[in-house]
């Protein structure tokens, strides 16, 4: 039996919205989806007229949809934004090189300027080389830290005012759950913010216009719009612990579809008791980039690193035992 669109009441419904359960026709779904992103942008005051906005583009579904929707909305509501695509080449053969091809096609399809910054050119290391050194475990730590800075550096090269990323509602909800499971109160407080504080020096504010868009709706949107995107997981070990949170969230969504929004709502309404120690955002004493410690030393092995950090800072020679501690564990 054909179902009618619950919004226009005229066309045949083409899909059931994962977010609300309503049946909608294609055009009503497109309209609702875009309208919601518009509302997120307006109510969150994400952009102001005349700004240059860099869209973090990986070639995946989220960033492809983000680029598409932003371009549409920028024209429809006359935001007066200058949009451009910003990609990071981590140097992962068989993954990033393919996805960057997609980004390059997107550049032509949407007619937006594209900038690619690579780990190799910024740091002299590709992820392939890093994995060769540290193995498959913990390499995400490097990649994450590197990418954060790479996006900022790319944005600075292009004189971008704001960066927006394709994080969707599922990602945000998953991060809330992750941070509860890890007891990371500082991130728990920050992770639901729609944009990062813009007062930090040197850091370009970031925002998530798709924060309230369900991952499933993003896929539906890309599917019906026939958008060109790349869908492959990174070849270097998906994070096991995040995987637990992800599975749990998907199960929650299956039980009650609104659960994703409910988790975000919870995250938005949490607040931290006074007197709980919070890391202070500072800058790295060596390179000047934002860091929670004096020297942005990554945590590599097991155990207490505070003592080691002191030694490294003072450039004292490390004992063999300490060297070993700094290395990642092999199993």
């Amino acid at each position, binding site marked *: 039996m054909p179902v009618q669109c*619950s919004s226009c009441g005229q066309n045949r419904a083409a899909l059931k919205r994962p977010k609300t359960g309503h049946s909608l026709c294609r055009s009503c779904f497109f309209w609702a989806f875009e309208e919601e992103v518009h509302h997120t942008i307006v109510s*969150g005051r994400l952009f102001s007229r005349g700004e240059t906005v860099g869209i973090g583009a990986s070639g995946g579904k989220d960033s492809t949809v983000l680029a598409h929707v932003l371009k549409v909305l920028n024209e429809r509501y006359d935001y007066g934004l200058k949009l451009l695509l910003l990609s990071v080449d981590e140097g992962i053969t068989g993954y990033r090189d393919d996805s960057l091809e997609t980004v390059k096609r997107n550049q032509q399809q949407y007619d937006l300027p594209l900038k690619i910054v690579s780990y190799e050119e910024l740091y002299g290391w590709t992820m392939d080389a890093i994995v060769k050194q540290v193995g498959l475990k913990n390499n995400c730590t490097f990649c994450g830290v590197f990418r954060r800075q790479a996006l900022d550096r790319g944005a600075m090269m292009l004189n971008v005012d704001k960066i927006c990323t394709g994080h969707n509602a599922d990602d945000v909800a998953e991060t809330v759950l992750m941070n*509860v499971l890890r007891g990371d109160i500082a991130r728990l407080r920050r992770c639901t913010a729609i944009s990062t504080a813009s007062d930090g020096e040197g850091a370009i504010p970031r925002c998530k216009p798709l924060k309230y868009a369900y991952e499933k709706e993003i896929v539906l949107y890309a599917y019906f719009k026939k958008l060109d995107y790349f869908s492959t997981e990174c070849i270097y070990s998906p994070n096991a*612990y995040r995987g637990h949170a992800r599975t749990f969230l998907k199960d929650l969504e299956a039980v009650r579809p609104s659960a994703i929004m409910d988790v975000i709502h919870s995250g938005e309404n949490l607040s931290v008791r006074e007197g709980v120690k919070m890391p202070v955002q500072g800058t790295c004493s060596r390179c000047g980039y934002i860091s929670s410690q004096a020297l942005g030393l990554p945590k590599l*092995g097991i155990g207490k690193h505070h003592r080691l950090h002191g030694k490294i800072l003072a450039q004292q020679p490390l004992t063999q035992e300490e060297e070993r501690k700094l290395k990642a564990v092999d199993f």
Partner: protein
Amino acid sequence: MCEVDEENSGCLQSRSVPGVCKMCVKCKENTAVLIIRVGDAFCRSCFKEYFVHKFRAMLGKNRVIFPGEKVLLTVSGGAASSSMLAQVQEGLGRDAPKKLRFIPAIIYIDEGGVCGQDPEEREETVAQLETIFRKTGFPYHIISLEQVFSLPSSVLEPVPGGARQPGGDYKAAVDQYIQQSKLKQKRGEASVEEAQDSLTHLNIYSPPSPEHTQTLQRLFSTLKTLTAKEDLLQTLRQHLILHTARTHGYSKVMMGDSCTRLAIKLLTNISLGRGASLAADTGFSDSRYGDVVVVRPMRDYSSKEITFYNRLFGVESVFTPSLDTKAPDKASIQRLTESFIIKLQADFPSTVSTIYRTSEKLHTASSPQNSSAEPSAKCLLCLCAADTKAEEASAFQATLLSERLSVGKAQSDPAHSNPASSNPASSNPAGSCCQEQGCGAGGCCSTSRIPAPTDLKTLLCYSCRLTIKDLITVEALPHYITSEAEKRQRRAQMKEEIGEFLLDEDEDAE
């Protein structure tokens, strides 16, 4: 992101297989009988000491329960609450070095009516529990869930908290208590007599009438999901406990939530959108009801410790089925979260304690202790501060918008839209019949004599709205809820009408 992996793989590596006959780490004399955490093997007597001390320490540290205060212990028959009962008994015992000095009573809520027990089974359970309760010598109340239908609507009225500051006050209260008991001893009155005296005020259990059970079952059958059923059951149970505590003058209610249970509850509440009241729901003390404060003295024990204690020291517990007994893992959010945490705990032994410690760092955003808050600012069901006056850019507003957009243009045919999932007030952006706009004598109000789910929604917090959304008809709700809802609505309407003459818009200013 990978740090957790690192730490946990560390645990896994350093975990050594415990020797068969290890010595107790504490006294180093006796053979250990159990391992609490990695590497901590305890002998029987040291474990007892450790367990008992934890309970006293929890109460002593928080200084919430005053000497001589009447405290209601909620006992479900399960391991944790039975253990709590045993601890209180032990603490009040004459030979205890640091005697607890409050006056306890027990309450058991018989939920058999909705949890699939037939009347015979219910009576049997009650009889088993009564035997346990009698042994303690404490007065007890056995109340069936069916009694929610005779609750007065005053249960839901917010009571300003007797904001007694812990600390200095506590000391004064202790001194006063000691003096009083000295006086009593002079007069030859023993506190035992007092306890026995109160035994006469027993609430004798009377089995609920089949009609009431049916009404209750009808209420639960109108809820479409197990998640909502569990949520409502919890709310109703809480109301019954609150009412009993108020009518009998208990100013504290002790709940037996263990650390494991609280971790599950915390994650469940996050998943249910209850983030705003997380601290109240999982903290040591919860003062949302004002005059009655809920305390959770068992929150430092893991369920494993409790089970071991009960087994080693013969603490009796009674199994009662709950709504999700025998339900599959994905039957409800509560059930799903429970199995998720328990499975994760098996792989990562620090899961529960990490989550539990997270809860200690939280406090509620909109402080419910704020006694000046208007009654309407509190949720009708869970009595927490309503969290729906969120700013424009919020998940709540985004959800409302999604619903509005999905039914947007079809408002010409309201019968067409699904009444359960679409909210008429929000599907009419034009606002011809919005509650907020107080349509007064408008023709559209002719149907709203009985509060529709929509009307009820405006009085609820985010999460309770979700529960009520799963309710097919509000008519099945107990009378005290609907009548209090009507009362609040009338008041809101009244305020609307006289709105322009009010100079001080204190409510909106908040």
